């Protein structure tokens, strides 16, 4: 299986690294993070506010199928087009705390690019909690995969 997205979460560290190579020119990759209407399309979220500048802020809101709303917000510390975004991230009303995110955009070839997201959490425990969240939510989906693994072990 091809693994385009890589997660690096070392034991006992309060940070997390997500890397992904895209079949897209650098400018298009960056645009996907810079323009509100595009963010809405791929993140499936509403962009309530997005100020792409130093000391600017953003707020996104996602609604689940049951109608529950989830808010995300942060402050932008650095916005260098086609290079780097440094911002804070907070998933509102959760115990995960505020995270610092450093997003680096790199050109690989004329048609491919790479994104590295370095996230720093308040503590190791908070990072681990965040890592476990999709498992808790997608438990059935994960179960099917686990069943496959278990079957292979037999």
């Amino acid at each position, binding site marked *: 299986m091809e693994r385009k997205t890589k997660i690096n979460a070392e034991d006992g560290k309060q940070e997390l690294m997500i890397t992904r190579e895209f079949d897209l020119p650098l400018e298009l990759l960056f645009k996907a993070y810079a323009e509100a209407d595009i963010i809405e399309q791929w993140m499936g979220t509403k962009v309530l506010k997005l100020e792409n500048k130093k000391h600017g802020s953003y707020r996104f809101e996602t609604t689940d199928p049951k109608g529950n709303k989830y808010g995300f917000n942060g402050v932008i510390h650095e916005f260098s087009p086609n290079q780097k975004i440094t911002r804070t991230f907070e998933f509102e009303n959760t115990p995960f705390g505020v995270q610092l995110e450093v997003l680096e955009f790199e050109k690989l070839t004329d048609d491919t690019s790479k994104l590295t997201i370095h996230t720093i959490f308040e503590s190791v425990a908070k990072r681990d909690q965040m890592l476990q969240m999709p498992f808790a939510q997608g438990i059935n989906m994960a179960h099917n995969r*686990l069943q496959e693994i278990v079957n292979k072990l037999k």
Partner: protein
Amino acid sequence: MNLRRDVFQAIADPTRRAILLLVASQSLTAGAIAANFDTARPTVSKHLAILTECDLLEQEYNGREVYYHVNPKKMKELADFIEAFRKLWDDRFNKLESVMKKYKSKK
């Protein structure tokens, strides 16, 4: 027969996964855990024994009570916790890629 079960087998069972989630945030006694399930108490005890046996749960003694809590170290060995997280981002990035490819061709 290998009595020592591996962690994947341990979490392949939905009740055991539910137990893990239950004690993820707080230590609980077997009784308090069992109260959350319709299953018979001995069945819950069996699940707790399996989870403890493969180190996913740890017991701590407080007076006469035995509390169960998750062993975060072992939990992390469960690549699938990270795998679910990775999958979430992979899906999200795949979406980004397809949205931008359409965007490009519109121009």
